[in-house]
């Protein structure tokens, strides 16, 4: 399959180069046939990328170990279901996957582009073709996934064990797809600016394509967090790792964009600002590619062995120069003729929220790049870890959540004192009640209590708006469900946004719970011994193992009991005196109120070829809290070393995912008439042919 793959990549180089040059010459010289031909070349690049991808996947299916990439990322023992994962498990394959995604979404977006953008489409196509040319070029000449080995091995090395997890079927593709999808709105807006289309013709296309990329990227990040939580054994889900951060930064900027584009759509303002945000998001996506592909910042899941850093750095700098040169060139024409009338208005709140998103982005960017600057300036290697990000970003993120509650309640243009009172009374009252109740219940940590109050405030503001809208419709005859459905349908972008806000609140609950109230303990247990933490007693009852030529796996069976702390008064007092939150029990006798509630089986594997351990945490998850058990090691004396934690409200982190996707879909679903593709019926004056 190597020959076919190489030919497809070379053809892709030729097609994208022809497309980029042909479409510009055709446009400049008024040669319509050349423009059409070049556009068809763009369509064919997707076919070339698909053929190259198919050739690589087929090589995995056939165990064609003559191809170095296949030999490096699979073996005969690999479950065939993981062929899809192996395809993008390495640097070259992931680049091919990115190219495939880019080429397919380019075709779709160009095919469905509205006619009113006809003048700027050649430039949009040229930008897409140049970006594709870069990827085809890298794959064909620098990092080919079809490179052949001099000596064909009998078996391959196998897939990275950390990737053999259900989350890997979707997390990397969504993350990479989301990052590259930012190219589409960027290409449309840049194309419009080059063509001198300064109006709002591109707003709908940019908004829809940005939502798609943003939704896909956000879902990818959430799945990555879930993967980290269940497989990496960190005991956490977000470590502010550089690779996590380079996905988060463009997502934050795109979130800001999706809010401010509504201001442009509704009020004709923020045009300049929106173009700047898209440029920043696109350049940050390129920064992500650079750091992930052999950049100077070390990460747990970057392609550290890659030597593509210089190439991607050059491409990122070229993108930066292009985007902002174009921005500066067209800046005078992009200025809005409207001014903000009041700082107490929806547009002002969106602007503040934009600044907060950018603040988090800048703080995160500084944390990612500081080690690099330190290395260059002082020759001292430093790392910026989670406490920096938590302390600096935490309050700003809380500010964003506050604005999430305030912004949608404010009217456009300016708010009156009466409307403020009408809309803010209930959310404020409920927020204060929530804080009061938590204090009365003896909950500690003022910052967390305030954060819970903010969540209650925002949730009530959304609920209040839905309640008012739904009751109004219900009074006019609809049943409750239909009334709510019609309310949502009346303005899908807005109500889809509210559903996404609910998912962010759920995420917020999980983050507050796990960050402020987590309890942890460690211990080594022999068979029959137990570890007690808070209201749980975990007893080590059995173990087992399985071996394969490439892996040694061991598991432990643990019974989980809910206990009455009064039964363990003495031990708890002793542990507290020692400064520990948990303790070990040698005695297997159960206490009177111990109740068996679950059985968990944490798993620990060691992959010989990779010299790498991989765990599956044992998790008992409820809406209130997760009991989380990581098997650290199996000791020579037969004991198992465990890290046990209680992660309050962790369930809400993962429950937020479906709401995030649902809200994105609702916001994305086309509104009637305006966002529908213009009819194919030829208008008077429309030329013949498929231009």
């Amino acid at each position, binding site marked *: 399959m*190597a*020959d*076919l793959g*190489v*030919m*497809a990549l070379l*053809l892709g180089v030729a*097609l994208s180069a*022809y497309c980029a040059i042909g479409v510009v010459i055709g446009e400049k010289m*008024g040669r*319509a*046939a*050349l*423009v*059409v031909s070049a556009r*068809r070349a763009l*369509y*064919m690049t997707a*076919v*070339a990328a698909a*053929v190259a991808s198919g*050739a690589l996947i087929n090589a995995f299916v056939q165990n064609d170990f003559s191809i170095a990439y296949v030999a490096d990322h699979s073996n005969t023992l690999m479950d065939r279901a993981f062929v899809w994962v192996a395809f993008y498990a390495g640097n070259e394959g992931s680049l091919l996957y990115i190219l495939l995604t880019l080429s397919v979404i380019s075709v779709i977006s160009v095919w469905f582009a*509205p*006619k*009113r953008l*006809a003048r700027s489409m050649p430039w949009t196509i040229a930008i897409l073709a140049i970006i594709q040319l870069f990827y085809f070029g890298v794959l064909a000449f620098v990092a080919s996934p079809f490179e052949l080995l001099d000596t064909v091995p009998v078996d391959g090395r196998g897939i990275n064990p950390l990737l053999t997890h259900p989350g890997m079927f979707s997390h990397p593709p969504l993350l990479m797809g989301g990052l590259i999808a930012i190219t589409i709105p960027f290409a449309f807006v840049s194309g419009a600016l080059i063509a001198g289309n300064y109006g*709002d*013709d591109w707003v709908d296309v940019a908004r829809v394509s940005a939502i798609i990329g943003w939704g896909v990227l956000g879902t990818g990040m959430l799945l990555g967090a879930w993967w980290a939580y269940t497989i990496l054994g960190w005991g956490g889900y977000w470590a502010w790792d550089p690779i996590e951060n380079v996905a988060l930064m463009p997502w934050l900027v795109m979130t800001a964009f999706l809010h401010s584009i509504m201001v442009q759509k509704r009020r004709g303002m923020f045009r300049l600002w929106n173009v700047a945000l898209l440029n920043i998001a696109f350049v940050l996506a390129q920064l992500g590619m650079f750091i992930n592909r052999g950049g100077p910042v070390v990460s747990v899941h970057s392609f550290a062995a890659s030597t593509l850093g210089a190439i991607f750095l050059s491409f990122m700098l070229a993108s930066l120069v292009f985007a902002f040169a174009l921005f500066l060139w067209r800046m005078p024409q992009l200025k809005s003729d409207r001014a903000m009338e009041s700082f107490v208005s*929806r547009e002002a709140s969106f602007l503040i929220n934009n600044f907060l998103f950018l603040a988090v982005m800048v703080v995160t960017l500084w944390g990612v790049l500081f080690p690099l600057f330190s290395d260059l300036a002082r020759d001292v290697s430093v790392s910026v870890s989670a406490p920096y990000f938590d302390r600096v970003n935490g309050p700003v993120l809380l500010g964003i959540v506050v604005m999430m509650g305030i912004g949608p309640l404010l*009217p*456009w*243009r300016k708010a*009156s004192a009466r*409307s403020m009172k*009408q*809309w803010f009374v209930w959310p404020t009252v409920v927020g204060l009640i929530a804080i009061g109740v938590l204090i009365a219940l003896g909950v500690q940590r003022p910052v967390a209590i305030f954060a819970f109050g903010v969540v209650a405030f925002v949730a009530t503001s959304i609920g209040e708006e839905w309640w*008012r*809208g739904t009751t*109004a*419709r219900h*009074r*006019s005859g*609809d049943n409750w469900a239909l009334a709510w459905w*019609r309310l949502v*349908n*009346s*303005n899908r972008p807005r109500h889809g946004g509210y559903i996404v806000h609910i998912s962010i609140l759920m995420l917020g609950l999980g983050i507050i719970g796990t960050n402020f109230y987590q309890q942890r303990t460690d211990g080594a247990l022999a068979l029959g011994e137990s570890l007690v933490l808070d209201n749980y007693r975990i007893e080590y009852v059995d173990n087992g193992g399985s071996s394969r030529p490439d892996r040694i796996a061991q598991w432990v069976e643990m019974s989980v009991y809910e206990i009455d702390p009064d039964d363990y008064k003495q031990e708890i007092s002793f542990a507290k005196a020692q400064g520990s939150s948990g303790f070990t029990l040698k005695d297997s006798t159960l206490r009177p109120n111990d109740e068996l509630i679950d059985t968990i089986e944490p798993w620990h594997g060691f992959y010989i070829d990779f010299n790498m351990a991989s765990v599956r945490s044992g998790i008992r998850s409820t809406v209130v809290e997760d009991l989380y058990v990581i098997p650290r090691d199996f000791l020579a004396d037969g004991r198992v070393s465990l890290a046990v934690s209680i992660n309050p409200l962790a369930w809400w982190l993962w429950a937020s995912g479906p709401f995030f996707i649902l809200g994105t879909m609702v916001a994305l679903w086309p*509104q*009637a*008439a*305006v966002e529908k593709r*213009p009819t194919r019926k030829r*208008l*008077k*004056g429309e*030329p*013949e*042919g*498929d*231009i």
Partner: protein
Amino acid sequence: MQILLGTLLAVVSVIVIAYPFLGSKRYRVVSETFVTRAKLRAERLRIYRKISDLEADFTSGDLTEHDYQQQRDQLRIAAAEILKQESGVSISDAKRDEEIEKEISRLREQSATSNEAPEGGDTL
């Protein structure tokens, strides 16, 4: 076999991109008139949507009555101006108003907001 498939792919690509030069269809660069018409139509639809959104904002209390009337009038004037540009000066004012009302009503029906009742806010 692979070389054959690769060659076939290249040949198909060449045919696809060469077809506009060889086929019977005659392509012309999109005329300025066509683009202008498409833009006017899109702008008109956008204004209809804005009027529809404006009504939703008004009924949900996001806009005062004064702002609502003012913006609605501005948008209606803008829509009428576009209609005038699209269809020439021959169309009467009454017909333009009728056309605008018709489109907005259609949008309202499609958005299932035709039975919408006021929901509160500082306008009520």
